[in-house]
């Protein structure tokens, strides 16, 4: 079943902006309100709009579900792996081992108001990015699974 022209054209125009906003929320998770979970949910909404506006079959062909499952698992594994790297520095699990070092994301931030620099936060940006990937892929996969069940029911009745 096709949606009306208004919905279809809106779904053609909006997803890039929604995806860009979601990626912004993820990337600036350590500076502005938001973070990995919220940005991942926003990003998933952009894809859900396309899934809702077009028929399930078209979208299921275009999206490779295996890749989404792989990236979801990889996101969580990398989050845990980043936590384990702290052992190399002689610290406990999940210690922020990148902060206040010359490595990327390691710039020192003094106490008080400041304009904000993306190159700060230690492991926070890494956690935000990979948790965002996990949430994005997970929510998309959940909705795809549920829609597949819905269509089977429609076909049989």
């Amino acid at each position, binding site marked *: 079943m096709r949606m009306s022209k208004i919905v279809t054209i809106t779904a053609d125009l909006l997803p890039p902006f929604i995806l860009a906003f979601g990626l912004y929320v993820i990337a600036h998770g*350590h500076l*502005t*309100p938001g*973070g990995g979970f919220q940005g991942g949910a926003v990003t998933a909404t952009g894809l859900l709009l396309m899934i809702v506006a077009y028929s399930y079959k078209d979208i299921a062909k275009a999206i490779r579900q295996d890749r989404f499952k792989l990236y979801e698992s990889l996101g969580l594994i990398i989050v845990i792996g980043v*936590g384990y790297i702290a052992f190399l520095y002689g610290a406990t699990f999940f210690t922020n081992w990148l902060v206040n070092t010359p490595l990327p994301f390691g710039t020192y931030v003094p106490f008080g108001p400041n304009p*904000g620099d993306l190159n700060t936060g230690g492991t926070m940006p890494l*956690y935000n990015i990979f948790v965002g990937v996990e949430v994005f892929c997970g929510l998309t*996969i959940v909705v795809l699974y549920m829609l597949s069940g819905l269509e089977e029911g429609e076909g049989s009745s």
Partner: protein
Amino acid sequence: MRTITKVIPVIILLAFFMAMAASFDFGRPFQTAMDDYFIEHGQEQVGTNNIVTTIVFDYRGFDTLGEASVLLTAVLGVGLLFRRFSKGEEDEAAEEEDWQEVAER
């Protein structure tokens, strides 16, 4: 009579909540040692301007790790419930139903 018995508990609850809301001094917590520590040291120790993210991902990182694991488990459960049966499994399920029908007779 019945309406009175329904209304009286609601009035009591409302009065209770109003009294509680009036008695508390919102915005001025009793214990502020923890909040002050996070606000004063968050930027220097973690390097983030967003104190909420500092607490969620660093000071209480295990909580966030658990949340992410819960999400993965939820997706796993949905995938198990809504999976497409492969050919062999479908036949087995159909055979099982047949046997159940025979047993019911």
